[in-house]
């Protein structure tokens, strides 16, 4: 197989509408470039800490993600959605789950798997929400050297 510019494409997903929008673009690109598509769900350890408790973060660190069914199901649901959408276009998807701070985990995963392009959704945030949450996409842009395609999501796209 001849090496094109984008042989492997990564689409991180959290199962939201914003991510779905990016998935459409990723599938189209994967088709055009005949690229392999990776779907990654990152279990956000900040969310686990504040939503389930610090002890649960340590549970993940201790390698017991296998017993945390609820989190696994969420992750599977999100990556399966990518797999199904891609299957309609005859594209195979490698689904994976990671844990940590999303931008760091995305960057590490991309490096480990020789990803050529990351496709991510973004929803403009401003004011308090931005101060409290920041934007995973923005942080990923800043922490990775791999090209990132940002797909803006607007409410009227619904």
């Amino acid at each position: 197989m001849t090496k094109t510019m984008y042989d492997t494409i990564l689409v991180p997903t959290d199962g939201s509408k914003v991510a779905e929008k990016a998935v459409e673009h990723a599938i189209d690109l994967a088709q055009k470039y005949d690229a392999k598509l990776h779907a990654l769900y990152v279990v956000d350890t900040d969310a686990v800490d504040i939503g389930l408790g610090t002890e649960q973060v340590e549970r993940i660190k201790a390698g017991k993600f296998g017993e945390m069914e609820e989190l696994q199901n969420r992750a599977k649901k999100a990556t399966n959605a990518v797999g199904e959408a891609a299957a309609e276009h005859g594209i195979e998807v490698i689904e994976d789950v990671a844990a940590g701070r999303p931008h760091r985990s995305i960057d590490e995963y991309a490096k480990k798997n020789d990803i050529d392009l990351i496709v991510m959704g973004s929803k403009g945030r401003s004011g308090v929400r931005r101060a409290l949450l920041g934007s995973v996409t923005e942080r990923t842009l800043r922490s990775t050297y791999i090209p990132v395609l940002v797909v803006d999501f607007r409410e009227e796209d619904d």
Partner: protein
Amino acid sequence: MAAELLMEASVVLANDYTNALEEGFKVIPALTVVLMLAVFLGVGWFFRVAAVDELWVAGRSIGPIENGMAIGANWMSAASYLGVAALVGTLGYFGLAYVVGWTTGYFILLIFMAAQFRRFGKYTAPDFVGDRFYSEKARAIAAFTTLVIAVVYAIGQGSGMGLMAEYILGVSYEVGVVVFMLVTIGYVALSGMLGTTKNMAIQYVILIVAFTGGLYAVGWTQGYSTVFPYLEFGAETAELSEIAAEAERQFIEPFAQGSLYAWVALAVSLILGTCGLPHVLVRFYTVDNERTARWSTVWGLLFICILYWGTAAYAVFGGLLYEDPASGADTGVTTGEVGSFMDMPGADADALVVLAAQLADLPEWLVGLVAAGAVAAALATTAGLFISASSAASHDIYTTLYNPDATQRQQVLVGRTTIVAVGLLVMLIALNPPALIGELVAMSFAIAASVFFPVFFLGLWWENATSEGAIAGMLTGIGISFVAILNDVLPMYVDIGGEGAVSPELAAILPGTSSALIGVPVVFLVIIAVSRVTQDPPEDVKRMVRQCHSPEPMSQQQTAEDVAATDGGQPADD
């Protein structure tokens, strides 16, 4: 009852004398606190979870000693560090109910609940209630109660931090509460990951070194004690009780300050409350196995004991020094404001541990260290409480009940908003706390005991407890404990004429700090009665309950749910 005492005291002290804590900004103690916070932040940053290498490969898990220390740090708050000595100092024998109550609960946890909770293997307390009683309504009530407990419990911590800020920073109590609460909110809300078990172990070490260091130094310099102050304060106690007797107060006479009934009611409330506190139980859900759960409890109990045993010694040393300060400073007694140490104003009582070190004329850095230990104790517990509040709001209420499709980012937003909101509410109430630190915390124990202990206990041990029974029981528990607390504290906020409780008769039988002696049996009866007349729980729930105390040890990664699903849940012989 002692809430009245506090009010009386603040009325008596209408003139100059405010409290005995030295005023003014102190450089070394302030640096100690800053350094301590920097260490917590540094450790949190160093052990932060940037990315987990491999989700399904066993990593390092937490051993029983480390978990025991975390239990200790989570458990021992400003109420233990400052409050218990205050209560023993001002109420004498009656205050011992706090020492007994706040340690004995761990035996019940150890025998009946720690390992069983581990077997159930859930994330949060409302998760347990929701899944065990197959009811979202039950989950919602549990989440609400978790929030209330976090707020009431944290008020006491805010109050303790304010007092320590008075000494360390030389600011007013109110400014102190605001400053330290804002630091705490920021610490928990914006940085995540900081409450790691590592940090809790460090917090435990700091608080226990500061506490026992202060105790040894006071005992040694004043000639009260030598190598083991825990057993060397008998003569001092006798001396102190004579001083009290001259002022016509009873220090060591049992039940002079409160009746036998009040003493027992308080101790029972605290014991059972221990077994119903969401932020205590989280440490059992996640350990490797039941054995670790049990041994963590044993170690935790030892670590806790080191502090509690010392509180009475502190109270006695502090009382003597309050009567006759080695440093020559003014106290309520030397200025003639109060008749004896037992009548010291609430602000002095709650600062008694630090005050003892200060009045013993110990060097400022050492007094500062004792104060910093109190801040560490308050901070560690508040962080745990805030996380239990944020998880109740974000996981149990928002995600599970309201928006099942919530993204992780939305959960973080809800969680952080909750922490900020709870923090601000706590700060506001702590500006003018309705009772002594120890009493405030005891009120949250009364709620935990009446609302949670019965559903946890019956939920784990009686498979026929139904969702209707649990809901009726929890609502009854909320009713009893809330009425008792409001009866005590309402006159602080609403003018209903007169001081003290709304109904003194009710307060005598059902004190806000000790409503569980009546509350718990009533709630048990309600759950059992309602469960009897409603339809039995589904078979899979019953299997899960049986598995929680099966004699077959489970492998590391199993939970009761898995076992019940695979072997059909043969009734275990227990």
